[in-house]
């Protein structure tokens, strides 16, 4: 009887739909779950109207961007990831901050492109644009809480997404540098190890490591440059947070170091990352990669080529 229900033989071979070859699908799912959990289980102080406006603005701006860069692939996946990231990070006491930030984020991909590659991770750009220029916008670094379960889920799911990505190296090196610095600070100050645990079980850190700094479209193309970039971001973030006692150190660090990426790319040339259709591309079709918001990416031959170059 049981055998019938739990038959080992499969009547058909289980296969992911073709779209899942694109790591952004996983990102969308993951960030979507996170947003739902945050909105319902945690008081994310986010209104439904803000969510709708963010998505509407991001998608509209993306549609408009197709006109600006007709050669770019016509995909809305990146825009959806940007919208999800912005709703997860940005907080506002009015309705217009989110759509403005989302539009700025998406347009930055088409407008700020030295070396035919967009400079800023769109979500980072959108958040910084809102915090610096729009009144009534802020980021709540403490919104996640230190819930062990939540953090555990984030690590598990984040690792799931990241291990699919050839460029997960930057996530791990950032975590090594940043967490290393946090870990050294604890005995230096004579604090209890519970402090480190408290600092690590933070949704913002994991979101940043697995979904922002790992954005393959805005991180350096060469593996060596990515390691240096990760170290630099970690150093600035740490100093920002614990030297100057300022907030959102990681976001600032990524924003401030973004302009150096073209320099790394010139110094250590390597093929640019592609989101989809790995293995089929030849050489550097440098325009095919699409702009993204947070994150990491995929099993693509671009990554493989990177390795070779490294």
């Amino acid at each position: 009887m049981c055998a019938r229900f739990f038959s080992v033989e499969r009547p058909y071979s289980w296969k992911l739909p073709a779209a899942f070859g694109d790591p952004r699908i996983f990102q969308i799912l993951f960030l979507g779950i996170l947003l739902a959990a945050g909105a319902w289980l945690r008081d994310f102080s986010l209104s439904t109207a803000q969510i709708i406006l963010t998505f509407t603005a991001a998608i509209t701006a993306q549609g408009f961007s197709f006109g600006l860069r007709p050669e770019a692939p016509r995909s809305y996946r990146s825009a959806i990831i940007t919208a999800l990231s912005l709703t997860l990070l940005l907080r506002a006491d009015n309705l217009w901050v989110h759509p403005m930030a989302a539009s700025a984020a998406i347009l930055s991909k088409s407008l700020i492109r030295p070396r035919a590659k967009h400079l800023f991770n769109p979500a980072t750009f959108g958040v910084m644009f809102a915090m610096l220029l729009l009144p009534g916008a802020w980021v709540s670094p403490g919104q996640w809480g230190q819930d062990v379960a939540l953090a555990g889920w984030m690590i598990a799911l984040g690792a799931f997404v990241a291990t699919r990505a050839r460029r997960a190296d930057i996530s791990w090196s950032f975590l090594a540098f940043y967490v290393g610095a946090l870990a050294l600070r604890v005995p230096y100050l004579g604090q209890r190890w519970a402090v480190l645990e408290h600092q690590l079980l933070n949704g913002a850190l994991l979101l940043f490591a697995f979904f922002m700094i790992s954005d393959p479209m805005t991180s350096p193309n060469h593996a060596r440059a990515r390691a240096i970039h990760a170290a630099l971001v970690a150093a600035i973030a740490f100093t920002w947070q614990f030297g100057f006692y300022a907030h959102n150190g990681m976001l600032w660090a990524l924003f401030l170091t973004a302009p150096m990426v073209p320099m790394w790319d010139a110094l250590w040339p390597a093929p640019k990352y592609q989101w989809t259709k790995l293995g089929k591309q030849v050489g550097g079709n440098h325009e095919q990669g699409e702009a993204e918001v947070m994150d990491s990416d995929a099993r693509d031959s671009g990554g493989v080529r990177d390795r070779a170059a490294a």
Partner: protein
Amino acid sequence: MLAIAVACAIARPPDARAFCGFYVGKADSNLFNHASQVVMVRNGDKTVLSLMNDYQGEPTDFALVIPVPEVLQKEQIHIGNREIFKKLDEYSSPRLVEYFDPDPCEVMRPMAAAPMMEMSARGTGYGVTRAEKRSYGVTIEAQYTVGEYDIVILSAKQSDGLETWLQENGYKIPLGAHRALEPYIRQDMKFFVAKVNLKEHQASGLDYLRPIQFAFQSPKFMLPIRLGMINAQGPQDLVVYALTENGRVETTNYRTEKIPTGENLPEYVQPKFQDFYKAMFKKQVDDNAMKAVFTEYVWNMGWCDPCAGPPLSREELKSLGVFWLDEPQAGPNAMLYRGPAFGGGQMPVTLTRLHVRYSADTFPEDLAFQVTADKENYQARYVLQHPWKGSPEACSAAGNYFKQVRERESREAQTLAGLTGWDLGGIMKNVGLTEVPSQKQWWKGLWD
């Protein structure tokens, strides 16, 4: 029910007696044992802290040790007024408001008023100890007598040296306190240490200790709660009143949650509103594993709606350290601030009231804060809706009205049970309803 929407729409002008509901009670901080109260005034990198305690023991045993980022000059230290804390507490307390259903047989009619209640405020001190002098790598950077306090500002090289110094100078600090002191020494912080000057205390003629205030400049926007945990027994409550120019204050290293608000409660809660709030707060703390900070009030200091207490005056705010009131206003809000100071005007001061219950295990780090750009007002406010006192036979609409009232009361009972964790059966009894709705299973009578 209908009356609420209408009352709110009509009662726009900020007159305490004309609002969306009448204020009938509050749950202020004297409800909570072991509650410290701190006023934090913050603008840019300037901070003015006022620490309130309800120290009950011998004045000779009183001591306070608090890390500060710089050596304070005498003019940076001041003695505050306990009454202002009381006022601030009353103004920002969670509140209960009430509405009266109109006669269902008539068209809308305005509501009647209810009496106000008076409460008081108290809190406990911070770290504990007391002082004299000598060395061990400890340097007395400054020494002042301010009001009834003798204050020394210390810097130290070694935490065990500091611990020994404090003990030898008569401060009763617990053994092992150096572990808690160490991180502050490593961060090059100084220690503000106060004890009572008996002569001055007697001369003041007061039978209590007044709040200590001090002003300093530092990018650090934090409260050193860890030090107070050395000799704490069980969880402690802390109420923080943050006064800023522009926006709400929240913690950056712990989750800041708003306490549930706007809920309709059964009528019988009125006399036991304080018990209700205590139970609800406890449930919130438990639900969050004692790892969150709760927002109880965020409001522009110029007004309130409804008022649990009057807003603080300009002079009172200044005495708490709000230093920017006399500065000429610039920016888009400049016009707003020129409005009438109270009873409807905006002030360039936002009050955030945070309430945290913490223990050494659940709060491993000191509280760190940020001022957000959030200007939205928020208050912990609970609603009583009194039914119309008429007969179901008064008119045809009345019968239907009372049926709706029953349904409403049942919903209110469930809300109350959900918020406080109290037994629903008991609540239903108090409300005068017999059947607990959730106890009826859907399948009962399915095959009858």
